[in-house]
């Protein structure tokens, strides 16, 4: 991606987790850590967005929150995952909401806008479980050809970088409401995304002011890592351990123990992104799903394997042990540069 070099560097700096222990940022953010100073992963339950889920969706989400789950991931089962996540935002108080949604066969501008809108609506509880679609049935729905695995990985990294540029295009204090000068916002506190990749470009700025978290946490599930590719996985904020509930509570616990012990140096081994989330898949809606999850959550928490129950009002970055994402202003992209230029020439 040929984004202005300084920008890319600055922009990716706060979220690079590939070769540094993350304990410092975790401690700074006040996230839970164990006796060894390791950040504990947040427990998530995956809901597949099938139409059959509609009747029980609200009750299920509230029940899972009450059962001590820290986040809900929404996997695409037909209903649009971002819409379902957004629908759950006012129905819940503290759980993180992470749609697992495709970066490839979408408009990057729309995707970035939808995700940052979810962050506004949920008061900073939004995250993105980045998926790179490889199902050959999907590209023809948008009139495109299926990309190779290599192209897919490249595009996933480009879309992730573009999304962050869109998210970071308004400063926190850009809406000034200066009645004296008649200014609703200050254009000098906005910047163009100016994201130029091989297959798309996005001019920006965002049509949405900066969202509560600024940059949403972007995670990659282990099952998606191959398609997402190394670059996007490395650029993401962390990895997600996937565990099938059907394997039973002991298997879940043992998988988590292995994952945690496998990275003694603060979870972030060489080339290994930090483990931020453990995602329980295969929730059986017919077999007391709330009871099952509640017992499991209590067990894992007592064993010191997962982060504490999230508190309302704390954003997802903090829950996940990520440092806040400050706005990085790039003078080259500032949105009032036309005005500056015209003044210089005058």
């Amino acid at each position, binding site marked *: 991606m040929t984004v202005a070099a300084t920008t890319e560097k600055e922009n990716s700096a706060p979220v690079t987790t590939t070769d540094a222990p993350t304990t410092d940022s975790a401690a700074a953010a006040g996230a839970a850590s164990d006796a060894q100073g390791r950040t504990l992963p947040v427990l998530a339950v995956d809901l597949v967005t099938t*139409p059959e889920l*509609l009747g029980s969706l*609200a009750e299920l989400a509230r029940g899972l929150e009450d059962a001590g789950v820290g986040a809900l991931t929404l996997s695409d089962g*037909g*209903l*649009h995952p*971002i*819409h*379902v996540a*957004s*629908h*759950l*935002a*006012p*129905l819940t108080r503290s759980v993180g909401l992470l749609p697992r949604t495709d970066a490839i066969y*979408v*408009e*990057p*501008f*729309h995707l970035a*806008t*939808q995700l*940052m*809108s*979810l962050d*506004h*609506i949920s*008061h900073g509880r939004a995250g993105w479980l980045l998926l790179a679609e490889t199902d050959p049935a999907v590209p*023809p*729905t*948008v*009139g495109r050809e299926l990309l190779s695995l290599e192209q897919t990985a490249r595009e996933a990294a480009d879309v992730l970088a573009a999304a962050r540029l869109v998210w970071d295009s*308004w400063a926190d204090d850009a*809406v000034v*409401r200066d*009645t004296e*000068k*008649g*200014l*609703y*916002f*200050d*254009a000098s506190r*906005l910047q163009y995304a100016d994201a130029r990749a091989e*297959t*798309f*470009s*996005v*001019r*920006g*700025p*965002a*049509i*949405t*002011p900066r969202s509560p978290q600024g940059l949403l946490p972007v995670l990659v599930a282990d099952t998606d890592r191959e398609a997402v590719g190394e670059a996007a996985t490395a650029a993401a904020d962390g990895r997600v351990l996937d565990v099938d509930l059907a394997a039973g509570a002991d298997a879940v616990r043992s998988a988590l123990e292995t994952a945690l012990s496998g990275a003694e140096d603060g979870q972030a081994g060489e080339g290994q992104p930090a483990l931020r989330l453990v995602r329980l898949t295969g929730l059986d809606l017919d077999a007391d799903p709330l009871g099952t999850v509640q017992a499991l959550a209590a067990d894992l928490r007592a064993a010191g394997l997962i982060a504490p129950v999230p508190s309302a009002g704390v954003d997802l970055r903090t829950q996940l042990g990520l440092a806040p994402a400050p706005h990085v202003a790039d003078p080259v992209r500032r*949105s*009032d540069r*036309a*005005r500056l230029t*015209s003044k210089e020439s005058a």
Partner: protein
Amino acid sequence: MTAGHWPLPTAPELSEEARALATGTAEHPIHPEHTPTGQLAFGVFFQGVNSSTIWRLPESGDQVAWESFESLIRTAERGKFAAFFLGEGLRLREHRGVPFELDVAGRPDAQTLLSALAAVTSKIGLVATQNTTFNDPVDLARRLQTLDLLSGGRAGWNIVTTDNAWTGENFRRGGYLDHADRYTHAEAFVQVAEQFWRGEKISHDGAHYTVRAEGTLPRSAQGRPTLFQAGASPAGQDFAARTSDVIFSPHASLSAAVDFRRSIVERTVAAGRDAGAVKILPGAEIVLAETEQEADEKVRWVRDLQIGPEQAIALLEQYWGRDLSEFDPEGPLPDVPPEVEESGVTRGAGFQYAKAEELTRTWREEAKEKGQNILEFARVKSGARRGEFTGSYDAVADRLAEYAALGAIDGLNITPWLIPSGLDDIVDHLIPRLQERGVYPEDYAGDTLRENLGLPPL
């Protein structure tokens, strides 16, 4: 009464003006195939980017905060509003190469927000303006159907078209569509969406792309999202007559509304649909007070807050294409020529290209003749006058009852000038009076948007 063949109506509320506009019978005053329902439905448009929402008052709420949207929609649902509308932003509006700083700007994605609002409401419709040029039909159809299912059949789609390359800079295809093709393209787009909603196999080979897909979601309680259309040009009207359930119109005056109704009915019948198949909702701003005199004062106060000195200069700069900041807003219009190649640059929807040289000359003469300074002139030019629906509670209620009796409109799409409290006086004072006059529902007719707009089942 000028229309000789229209018998004296039994409805005593009709004014001389209304009788003069009627050309048919008492049952069919406007068109022989159109029977007025005598009922009005209200929608509310939370505009986002625009110049009519006042942000300078202490009670002006946050334009992006969830609480603002939740508060407004709860008031609207208390007032039995049929629908809540959100606009779509595709690029931040610019003025002379810089994002336009004087008006409200920046908004959340419409459907993402409506999906959340569906969770805190139970009856009101949820309508998103969505563009056919910079969306993919299957992706958009699936999102709309998701919203329709999440809300139990309350989703609506306001179909709009755009074609400029400036907007396209944010999207994969860029500025790929010619202006002339925008409705042909939109119609093909809607056809693909409808196939998706019917759960069909889609095999579309179009001028701009091919689509292979299959609808996989169940039908919603209303069958499919309700279709709205905003284009009032002849091409837009024909598109609406063939495709839409509701058309927005800019025609709020009684005579213009009657003409527009007649035109839509003719086109709808010609398209082989029922004369009442397309509902008409003009966009409207409502300014109310206890008395007529107070309402007049209030509308002047609202205009002053909407168009301040900075907005007035910016409006002229848009046509002059140059910096006019040295001119006094209280003085005459600028006597400098426009920079023709600079003016008329895209500022997003609602800002039309103009022949700058001729226009600025005409404007100077017009303002001089009327003795208007820049500020006064700008307030008039931005539609800043006493609106159709400004007045005392009773006067506005009477006027709307007359629109309903004549069948000129099916309701209004109201743009509040204040967020989020801008509907309070409408819901507390106007709606009860409309209900007393029997032209506004006492309660929701049903659970779906179609039902609450009075549209027949699909």
